[in-house]
């Protein structure tokens, strides 16, 4: 009975999300130039990142036992894992403005989960360009590393990408939610967002303090490094890798709770 109710709720939310998304895409198609330009923009950003990476490897064929293609693997993997936060959770970037101006109250009158309702409003198409670029990089690395392609390994890849994506989403949820308590939360968001660039490196290249921080405090090592070990170092997979889906879910849940707690005690502005 209870499970039935849960699945019904899930279906209800999925249905509403699909509707909003479909409408949103339809209206965005009217602005094709906007779609193209924003995607060209994000691809250009990634290409320049890629070139810097590539130049570095022209000088050092490997970094601490990490070959060029392995690094490419991490790079592509991280880009894909960072796609959901870009595609589906971009409205977090507007949160502080809406909270500050009082516009956030518009979202508070619906008989539906507030976090879901707020986040569902924006779908950022730029993420598609990033996904394409990441997928291309990953496939390129995959081929050159001679990794096999079996249904099991694809399943593992999907689970790994899914759980990896939860970490950046959770980090950004918490960073955005700080605006419910402090006014300068823009700094926090930008600060946290920039950490994602470190996600593409194996954490072994950092010193032990940063290794600790990137694993337990701002867990960006879970965005690419830990999950990739399943594919790149299959004989030597640490426990944290196996735990990462669970940690990801818990971390996401905590971030959701922080966000919703802030939103529920939001008292609006005087006008």
């Amino acid at each position, binding site marked *: 009975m209870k499970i039935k109710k849960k699945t019904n709720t899930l279906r209800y939310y999925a249905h509403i999300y699909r509707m909003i998304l479909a409408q949103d895409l339809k209206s*965005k198609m009217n602005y094709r130039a906007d779609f193209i330009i924003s995607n060209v923009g994000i691809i250009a950003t990634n290409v320049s990142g890629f070139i810097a990476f590539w130049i570095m490897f022209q000088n050092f064929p490997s970094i601490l036992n990490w070959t060029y293609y392995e690094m490419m693997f991490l790079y592509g993997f991280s880009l894909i894992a960072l796609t959901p936060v870009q595609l589906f959770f971009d409205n977090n970037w507007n949160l502080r403005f809406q909270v500050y101006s009082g516009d956030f109250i*518009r979202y508070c009158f619906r008989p539906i989960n507030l976090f879901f309702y707020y986040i569902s409003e924006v779908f950022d198409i730029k993420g598609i360009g990033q996904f394409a670029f990441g997928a291309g990089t990953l496939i390129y690395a995959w081929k050159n590393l001679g990794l096999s392609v079996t249904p099991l390994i694809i399943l593992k890849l999907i689970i790994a990408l899914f759980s990896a994506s939860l970490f950046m989403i959770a980090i950004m949820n918490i960073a955005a939610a700080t605006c419910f308590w402090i006014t300068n939360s823009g700094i926090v968001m930008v600060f946290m967002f920039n950490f994602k660039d470190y996600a593409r490196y194996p954490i072994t290249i950092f010193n032990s303090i940063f290794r600790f921080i990137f694993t337990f405090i701002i867990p960006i090592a879970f965005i690419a490094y830990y999950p990739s070990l399943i594919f790149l170092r299959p004989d030597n997979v640490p426990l944290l890798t196996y735990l990462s889906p669970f940690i990801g879910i818990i971390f996401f849940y905590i971030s959701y709770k922080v966000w919703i707690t802030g939103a529920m005690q939001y008292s609006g502005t005087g006008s």
Partner: protein
Amino acid sequence: MNMEPIIQIKNVSKEFKVLNRREGLMGSIKDLFSRNYKIINAISNITMDIMPGEIVGYLGPNGAGKSTTIKMMTGVLKPTSGEILVNGRVPYENRTKNAQNIGVVFGQRTQLWWALPVIESFKILKEIYRIDDKVYNDNLELYNNLVGVKELYSKPVRQMSLGQRTLCDILAAFLHNPSVVFLDEPTIGLDVTMKSKIRELITELNRVKNTTVILTTHDMGDVDALCKRIIIIDKGTRIYDNSIENLKDYFGAYRTLKLMFSKNPEDNTEENLNKIAAEIQTSLHKEFPSAENIAVCSNEEWIDIFINEDEIKMMEIMNFIQNTRNIVDVKITEISTESVIKKIYEGGVK
């Protein structure tokens, strides 16, 4: 008839704790831990019952606490003390359940999807509120009969004028047949035609669906057109709660005597009229010291004299003025809601 009130507010107070914020990032971090608050009493000990189907005008000067009260009734704000029941539920504790049975319009803050055509917003709302096909279609048909907005439906909200958008926001608020609709300054910034259109719409929706409507406004035209009952608050306390008729009875002895002394526009400059008004006011106060409530002001080409006939008869004043000035035209008007409310805001009623 013995009906239960649909909204019960009992001894409700709301205070805001406002942080005295400090500068910079370090300041923000300190703010996180500091307890340096200032307390604002937005609402103090308010009690009222609203019956199903009523349209209540909730009035008060700027900063009186109207929006704060509405936010508490919608469940967004939690009262500091006291009890609120809406449809028998505590709004703050059942925010989503409460939301299913209410509609809210905050003037100028649209709740429709900015980029989408209105009809698409309506379709999404239909799913969110789980509105029956029949109810939904009936409502769209009703809307079409009332305001004929079909051609607006395909326009993205972003491209609408403020008035069109407000109209659509009101329609959206009634779409799921809520038992109560809260309208916070729905006519703010609208032209006269749109105002009257919206007033008619609200009247009709209330009549057809028996929806309870709580309306805040600074436009007494809205009050005259819509409300039988008004509740007035000032600085967070209730100062009036009764029918609008009763209020006018209270001022029943008040009249406005309008006099014109010249039809020549050159004599009727604002400066000149203000001078005349001031002179008349002084001489009337000297002549009739017991008539404390006399007030004189210029109003376009007229001089308005506000008189309480319990204190002094209108004819006496006319005769007195006629002795010194040549009156070319006279009008006598009942007191308007506008001036009654103004009088109350200014502390005319205890």
